[in-house]
Each structure stands twice: as C-alpha cells, then as structure tokens.
C-alpha cells in the first residue's frame, strides 16, 4: 500500500482530512431536458438530466396515487482508466437503484399521479465518489425541472485511509484505503437517504466517519443552493470553491 497520508497529515492531493475536493456545479446546461445539472467533484465529471412528469410506459407500471421514478446511473466507456465495456454492469444496476432510493424521499410524488419522472445520471469521467456526485447533481436537475420537493439531497462519502477517518475519498483513496462510506442527507429534514459501507471500521470510527460525511453533505448543500441561485436569480458572485 502506498503512503496516502503524509507526516503533516495531508492527503495525496494535499487536502486535509475534512476537506472536500474542488467542486463545480452548474444548473440547466442541456437544451432538451426538463431539468439538468453538471458537477465536477475532483476528476468526476457528471451530467444529470430529468425528464418528466411524463407518460408511463409500459402502462401496467402506472400508479394511480403517485408518480413512478426511473433512474439510471451510467458510465461512458471513456470515463474510466481502462475502457469500460458498454454493456450495463451489475455495479451500475445497483447504483441506479441506490441513487433512485436516495432521491425518492425528497420528491412529492403524490403531486404527480399516473406519471413517470426519469432521472439520468451520466458519468463522463469518474473518480472516487461518483455515486455521491451523481446524487448531488441529480437533486439539482430535479429542482431545475420544477419537480415539487420536500428538501434537496446532498451526498458525500467519508472513509478510512491509512487508519485515519477522512472526507470525500478520491480514486486512489477509494481503491487503496480501508473503508468507504457514501452517505446522502436531506439537510433540512435531517434524514439520511443513502448509506453504504465497504471495509472494516470500529464502532467509534463508524460514528466518526458517519458524522464527517454528514458535515460534508452540509457543505455541499450550500454549494447546491448557490448554484440554483446563480441560475434562477442571475447573480454572478463567484462560487465558493470548497477545498480551498
């Protein structure tokens, strides 16, 4: 294992343990979609788009009392270090489900009976934490599409690297570190809507990592609000760059 944290406590890209990677958020970037957003989070480059509420196909999936949600997380073949096979992987299928179920609690689906809302997350370039970045962007795309929401969803991982609990793992930390714990939060309601964990932690580390991830979600939430503000109220004040 390479040494991922140096003697000064800094990580391989110079970040402190509780620092997010540089983040860029843009809302409303696609012409055709009903809502869209773009996120860069470290080397992640992800577009999320929303279509709907729209007609349900096939018809037997219609729910008389609410909208159904379709969601796909998909990686471009050129998004990874070695080319990704274009066939859908089991990993993508699982993450699609995880993302959908992290966003559904925030959507007021009862407002759109008998319709479907489609959420597409396209990873153009992937780094560690692409599912979290995808949730963060998709949440903005849903807002951009004007879907009624109880809250925004912000998402971020924490984990354990070289025995230390750190925020927002990049690709090397994810591969060579001990533990990854992606979390998504509805910041105002205070509910966790995504939680996964890979790798060993003690109960104390569990608590520490979970709370660090939550604080990351709170930081992202600020950036999300600002991105929406920039789009809808035209302000041009420079974006806060987390990680600076």
């Amino acid at each position, binding site marked *: 294992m390479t040494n991922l944290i140096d003697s000064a406590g800094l990580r391989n890209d110079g970040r402190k343990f509780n620092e997010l990677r540089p983040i860029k958020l843009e809302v409303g970037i696609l012409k055709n979609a009903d809502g869209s957003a773009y996120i860069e989070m470290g080397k992640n480059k992800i577009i999320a788009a929303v279509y709907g509420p729209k007609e349900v196909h096939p018809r037997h999936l219609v*729910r*008389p*009392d609410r909208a159904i949600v379709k969601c796909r997380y998909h990686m471009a073949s050129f998004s990874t270090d*070695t080319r990704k096979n274009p066939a859908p992987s*089991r*990993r993508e*299928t*699982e993450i*699609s*489900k*995880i993302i*959908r*179920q992290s966003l*559904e*609690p925030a959507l007021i689906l009862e407002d759109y009976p008998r319709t479907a809302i489609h959420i597409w997350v396209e990873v153009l370039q992937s780094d560690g934490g692409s599912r979290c970045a995808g949730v963060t962007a998709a949440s903005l795309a849903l807002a951009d599409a004007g879907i009624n929401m109880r809250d925004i969803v912000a998402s971020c991982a924490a984990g354990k690297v070289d025995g230390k609990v750190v925020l927002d793992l990049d690709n090397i930390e994810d591969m060579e570190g001990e533990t990854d*714990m992606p979390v998504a939060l*509805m910041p105002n*309601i*205070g*509910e*966790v*809507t*995504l*939680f*996964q*964990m*890979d*790798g*060993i*932690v*003690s*109960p104390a580390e*569990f*608590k520490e990592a*979970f709370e660090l991830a*939550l604080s990351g979600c709170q930081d992202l939430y600020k950036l999300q609000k600002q991105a929406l503000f920039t789009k809808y109220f035209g302000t041009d004040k420079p974006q806060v760059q987390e990680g600076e």
Partner: protein
Amino acid sequence: MVAAKRPVLESLRRDHIIELLGKGQRVDGRKLTEQRKLTIETNVIEKANGSARVSLGDTEVICGVKIELGTPFPDTPDKAILIVNAEVLPIASPQHEPGPPDEEVIELSRVVDRGIRESEMIDLSKLVIIPGQKVYAVFIDISVINLDGNLIEACSCAAVTALATAKMKSHELSSSGEFKQLEDIVPLPTNRLPVSITVAKIGESLLVDPSMDEESVMDARLTLTTDDDGNFCAGQKGEPGGFSIDEVFQVSENALASGKEVRELMKKVIEGAKEGKETN
C-alpha cells in the same frame, strides 16, 4: 411489490402493522429486536465443495460453493476470484417467474458479496496458484426456495456457513512450476464469520429481521454487517425512505447485538459439521 397495485389494501395493512408497533408489538408476536427462528444445515449438496440450507422463519435458501481453477482478472493478478450469485427461484413465491435477475436480486448478490469480501473472511491472496495465470475461483451460488422476507440475512448466513465448512483438493507445484491437483482434501482457509443484520423502519419504529408482510409496508431498511471483533465491515440502506441520524446509530447497536447471537449459532453449526453433524 404486489401490494403496490392495491393502495387501499396496502394502506389497511400498513395501518394495522403501525398500530401494533405503536404498542411495541409485531403481527407475528415477536419483540422489535427479536429474530425469527434460524436453522442452519450443512453439507446438503454433496457435489458442492461446501453447502448450507438456512431457514429464517419461513424464508428458506440453499447455498452451494464450488471451487474451480480460473485465470485471475487482469487488474488483480495476485487475487483469487470470488463470485456471488443469488437467485430467487420461481418456486419461492407467486411473484417470481423465471428471467434475468432484476435490480432487487442484483443488489442482494452484491450486498452478500460485500459482506464476505470486506470482512476479509477469505484471504484471496492465499488462493493464488501462479500469480497472473492460475488462481482458484470460488463460486458462491445461492438459491432462494421460499420467500418470507429478509433475504439478505438468510443468504448471507447460508453463504458464510457454506464457505466456513467448504473443503477442496490440495495441490502442489512441481519444481518446474507445473500445477498438480492432489487427492488430499483440505478445508478452504477462512478467517472471520461476518453476519449481516437488517433492520426495517416502519413509521417511527425500527424492527429487526422483517418478514415479507413487514417488508411490504416498510419505509426503509438498513443492513449492517459485523465481524467477530465487533467491527462493522459493510452496510447498505435500501428502499425509498430515510433514517434519522439517531436511527442509524440505533441500527448499528441492533446489528452488533443480533449479529453476535447469529454468530454463536453459526459457530456451533460449523463446529458440529467438523464432527460430522449436519444441522443445528
């Protein structure tokens, strides 16, 4: 899933279950933190290297482990292959017909896989024969034969027990590096016993080991896998609801407590298997 098409029935059932939960009761009389009866039988498939049949209440699953020779994946030349594949057979419920695995079953396979892999129950670097060329491939196939909720725990328990009791032929490499399988039978080398516990959230209540009825009305579930040292090694939240931050911590305590119980039982069964007894 079926209930989803009948909003009135679903909501009646939900009301009934929540009303009981309000009094700290469950439809089948269990306490909130009480698991259903768990039975584990080993060596049920003689043709497999290891196998186990698990029933958890009326949920029944069979796991067979096959250990074969394979070529390592190019990006992990010094690791054996570990593949987990769960399947809900059509005999298991009126809702499951034959077909490719749906996202539910893919998630199930991947969560069971993660629990085993991340706990380092199997040291995959020990099962390498010639790095980059020949390794053992451990196939863990799980068939669900009757479905009554909490598949993650039942499948994970069957997989871990089948692995812990699996046997394989030993081998030697000749001085010229040639591989030769020997007739000696040795146990598959394993370390810990990871246990995956699922807690369901219905309304304001958290309950361990949900049955199918409870799953059909639950808001969310959280699975945590623990190991023998009382550490966590994997986690997965499912279903379209959320947990408060305190609830996550409460689930983590449930997972440690119930995990310990289940591990005790597994240990007894595994010990028994070594002595030729094949059930608990």
